[in-house]
């Protein structure tokens, strides 16, 4: 089921000493030692160009004041300003609040849906229907929610008709309603991502354990929480990591629906960098923020993600 180990099956070396191998001359042997590197090199070089170059560029830029005119060296001033910038901290906090609530909701909903769906005879059908939101462009989803909640106020209208509220919801002037809107759009679009993975994990589990527990008289919630869920743990972790990466980079929804407002209450870190760099043309400052995020990303990647994706070495 989980097989993320890099040193997993089939990864053993090309066995030397096969009959054909004996015919290789020494030169060929040396070439053979380099061969795997040659195969992987183009991809690595390409990625280095597109990640390392920007990394170095941003690191350099972050020590300069760059606004319209020529670059002016300012030492660590950008970083000091960043440390004192309540908008930067706010953006970090917003990203964390919106991301963690959204992720928790998606995980819980996807687990519940997967639990109900995976033994259903129409599981294929459910999967296709649930997938639909995921296949819309994020910018389109942003417009759906902008129109639904803000511009045409359909939700307010329905709630008023149902007698649940008295007047139109003032979403744009409420930080929490605006955050809720971003969370709702993200949950709507991306719960299927987790659902599909969880269903696959549940379907691939050994049914006999479950069967045995049931014969012993265990109830279905007990079976789910004590047997299925622990077995799914590695899959859940991998799926949540992938989702968490995408949530922290949330941009289109913020850009289109809330523009970070009200009062920066929904400004995510991506939007902060975009606004600093491309709206205020404060590129040195934006680069400093990028470098901080880059370091955080590398830390998380090394400490968390590496463990989840490369477990059980050797």
């Amino acid at each position, binding site marked *: 089921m989980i097989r993320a180990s890099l040193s997993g099956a089939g990864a053993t070396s090309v066995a030397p000493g096969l009959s054909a191998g004996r015919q290789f001359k020494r030169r060929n042997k040396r070439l053979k030692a380099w061969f795997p590197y040659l*195969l992987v090199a183009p991809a690595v070089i390409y990625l280095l160009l597109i990640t390392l170059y*920007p990394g170095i560029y941003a690191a350099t830029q972050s020590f300069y004041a760059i606004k319209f005119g020529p670059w002016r060296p300012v030492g660590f001033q950008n970083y000091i300003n960043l440390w004192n910038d309540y908008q930067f901290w706010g953006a970090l906090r917003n990203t964390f609040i919106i991301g963690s609530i959204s992720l928790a909701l998606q995980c819980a909903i996807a687990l519940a849906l997967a639990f109900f769906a995976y033994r259903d005879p129409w599981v294929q059908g459910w999967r296709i*229907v*649930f997938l639909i939101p995921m296949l819309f*462009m994020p910018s*389109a989803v942003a417009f*759906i929610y902008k129109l639904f909640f803000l511009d045409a*106020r359909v939700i307010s209208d329905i709630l008023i008709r149902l007698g649940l509220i008295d007047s139109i919801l003032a979403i744009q002037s409420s930080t929490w309603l605006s955050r809720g809107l971003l969370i709702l759009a993200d949950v709507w679009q991306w719960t299927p991502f987790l659902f599909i993975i969880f269903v696959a994990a549940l379907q691939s589990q050994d049914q006999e354990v479950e069967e045995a527990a049931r014969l012993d008289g265990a109830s279905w919630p007990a079976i789910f929480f004590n047997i299925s869920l622990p077995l799914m743990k590695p899959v859940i972790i991998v799926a949540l990591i992938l989702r968490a990466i995408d949530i922290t980079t949330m941009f289109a929804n913020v850009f289109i629906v809330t523009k970070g407002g009200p009062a920066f209450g929904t400004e995510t870190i991506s939007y902060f960098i975009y606004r600093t760099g*491309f709206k205020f043309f404060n590129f040195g400052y934006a*680069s400093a923020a990028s470098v901080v995020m880059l370091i955080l990303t590398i830390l998380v990647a090394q400490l968390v993600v590496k463990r989840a994706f490369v477990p059980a070495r050797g």
Partner: protein
Amino acid sequence: MAAKRRSRGESLTLRYAVLGAWALFCVAPVLWFLSIGLRPRVEIITPQPIYWPTFSLDAWHMIWEDWPMAKYLRNSVAAIFGSVLIDLVLAIPAAYSLSRYTYRGRDDIGFYILSTRMMAPAIVAVPIFFLFKNLGLLDTIWALMLIYAAINLSFVTWIIRSYMLDIPRELEDAARTDGASDLRILWEIVIPAVLPGIITAAVIAMIFAINEFLFTLLIASTPDAYTMSVALANFTGGSDGVIYNAIALVAFLAFTPVFLVVVAIQRHLSRGLTMGAVKG
């Protein structure tokens, strides 16, 4: 078979109530958005929402006649196919190397490739913008192609690698005994055997490329390089305000082919989305 597995006490009513409710939640906004695309503009933003609009193809004519929609579509298709092609050319040998050989640093190289997926687009946005500016590639589909390829390369490599690990080694060993070179084995035996994996990877790369928003927004500044995703944001400018019915139709125009392709590969989807960590 599935029905017989039903546990004691599990109620079918509850199951279908939950699944049905979520299905409704998924589909209702989509259907309503479709109705936006097929109604005249005056019926979109009104004091009271209109639930039974008049049918109109205004927006359909508008996107083709008033906007260079055909050009946006061409840009999207060119940038996406180009990027997927770059990905496959780079990823197949890399995946083969990572799955079939043991050498020093292999695990680190593999993890480096994976870790590029974790980089938030916004982090590299500023430098990438200047990189393409210096290369004179701003506002071209070439820049989009290169950036989409970079975003998806980690995914594509890891998916294909996961499928390659599944091929029985005997198949290759037999060919090697017959004196076939490693490259020939890759081309004639391994690639055909992992074709489902390659297709899955290509489809997922395609979806991410269509969805990409931030880089496209920064790189494309004129209709020369606008793609469907960013063209949407384009419908908001100007004195007309947001032209929702055109946006809705463009959204469905991009959705339909993606939906059809994904339905075709849905069996492989869970494995692809987790880069091979979960086998569907």
